[in-house]
């Protein structure tokens, strides 16, 4: 079974698993408030609750994580005064549980970001530059510049998705090579890298882990990654 760890409000994850031949289920924070979880870090004895059903660790063939951390707004069933504490506890728990699974996990979590290393934009840019990749320098100021639009992509920009050894996206092969080098530097198998254009030599803008899993080509690559059964 493929487990997709997702926000309870994330419809794209439901679309990702709907209609697929393979068994897949969503794991949301609601499942963490159900009797049945048992995780003993020192042993193989562990059970989880996935999609409301009690699940043994040996039933899980892979995990795709689409939730960077648990936030209070995910915990509507918990009294408001406890939500922040419960959110921190659930994040800490999931990071340990995910990192202890023997099946493939995209990406391996860290204690503060379940989707992979919690790199800021500046870290991606600096790492890329040190790898010899042309970059658009990252700038920021305090107070923030009035015209700062850090999340806007310039017109004509290109996206390269790294999924394991595969690169998906319409761009020159050299950009795929750069994206893979960045994924390797971060120690991740799943990455979305942005460049100023699809042409060779275009500059790196930034990266994150939010590949579009509803893009058919990306979706197929992710499913194939898990079907390959990469064991840690």
């Amino acid at each position, binding site marked *: 079974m493929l487990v997709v760890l997702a926000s309870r409000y994330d419809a794209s994850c439901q679309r990702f698993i709907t209609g697929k031949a393979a068994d897949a289920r969503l794991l949301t924070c609601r499942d*963490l*408030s159900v009797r049945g979880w048992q995780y003993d*870090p020192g042993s193989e004895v562990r059970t989880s609750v996935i999609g409301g059903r009690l699940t043994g660790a040996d039933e899980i063939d892979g995990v795709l994580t689409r939730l960077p951390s648990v936030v209070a707004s995910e915990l509507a069933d918990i009294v408001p005064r406890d939500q922040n504490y419960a959110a921190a506890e659930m994040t*800490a*728990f999931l990071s340990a549980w995910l990192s202890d699974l023997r099946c493939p996990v995209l990406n391996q979590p*860290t204690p503060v970001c379940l989707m992979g290393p919690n790199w800021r934009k500046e870290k991606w840019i600096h790492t890329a530059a040190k790898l010899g990749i042309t970059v658009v320098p990252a700038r920021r100021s305090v107070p923030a510049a009035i015209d700062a639009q850090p999340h806007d992509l310039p017109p004509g920009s290109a996206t390269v998705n790294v999924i394991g050894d595969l690169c998906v996206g319409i761009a020159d092969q050299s950009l795929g090579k750069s994206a893979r080098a960045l994924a390797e530097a971060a120690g991740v198998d799943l990455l979305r890298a942005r460049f100023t254009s699809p042409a060779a030599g275009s500059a790196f803008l930034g990266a994150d882990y939010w590949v579009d899993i509803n893009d058919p080509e990306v979706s197929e690559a992710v499913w194939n990654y898990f079907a390959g059964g990469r064991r840690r």
Partner: protein
Amino acid sequence: MILLWGIWRDSPIARVHDALVRQGHHPRFLDQRTSTGASAEMCVGRDLVTVVRTDEGVVDLRTVTATYLRPYDPGRLPAVRRAGPDSQTSRRALLLEDLLSSWAELTGALVINKPSANTPNASKPFQSRQLRDIGFCVPDTIITTDPEAVIKFRERHRRIVYKSISSIRSIVTELTDQQLPRLGDICWCPTQFQELVPGTDYRVHVVGDEIFASEISSAAIDYRYSGRQGSDMTIRAASIPDEIARRCAVASRRMGLAVSGVDLRCTPDGKWYCFEVNPSPAFTFYQDATGQHIDEAVARLLISGSALGQG
């Protein structure tokens, strides 16, 4: 230049400042409380250029060779509390803290400690696995939403405690019969239980290659709250086996920590358990009790600017 970032009333940073002065250095101190009006710019490509402007002048962070960071939650700064969470002051304090954290992550200067090195501490079971790999004993643990699993775990170990999984501070508390009627509450959130390990507590501060061990005598389950638990506590300087000191140094180094506080317990039959490696130890509490000059060691480390594999 040596840079200190935090608040003056924070004892470790004030003591390190004074130790640096005693050793003939004059660090630049960026006080969070008076920096809420500061401005800053950062540009990152292959090079890292960061400039901070305060009422006391301009700091070019390229000149920093070493830095000691103990920033407080910006939301707790007096100016931010007065102005409110949605104020310009609040936004500015958060932006400055984030910019300096980003700089600290990238700079080639010695950083005590890099923000990313703090992350294993955000999940105790995550960190425990690293500690077990280093050779420490770690308490038998279960994290569960199932009350029956806790009952069985308690039957196996007779005495168990519960504590937070995350880095949010909690008082380590024994699960007693009186609490059993509330055990059903754990269905709402995975909760961590551990065997109660008997023995004597030790806090070991690792400062670069220097080790400072202190022994804590207390009848409390969690000595940090011994007063609240109606128990006395004494702390004294101690020596620990070389192998245990070596493991503490290895743990600190593997986690990328130039300075750390390692919490240990030695059982009556001589087993050494490690509970946690604290990336931002308030060492003055132990220094005041033991007379160990940990502040001087931190100052020496900053002066040496030795990178300990960072940068």
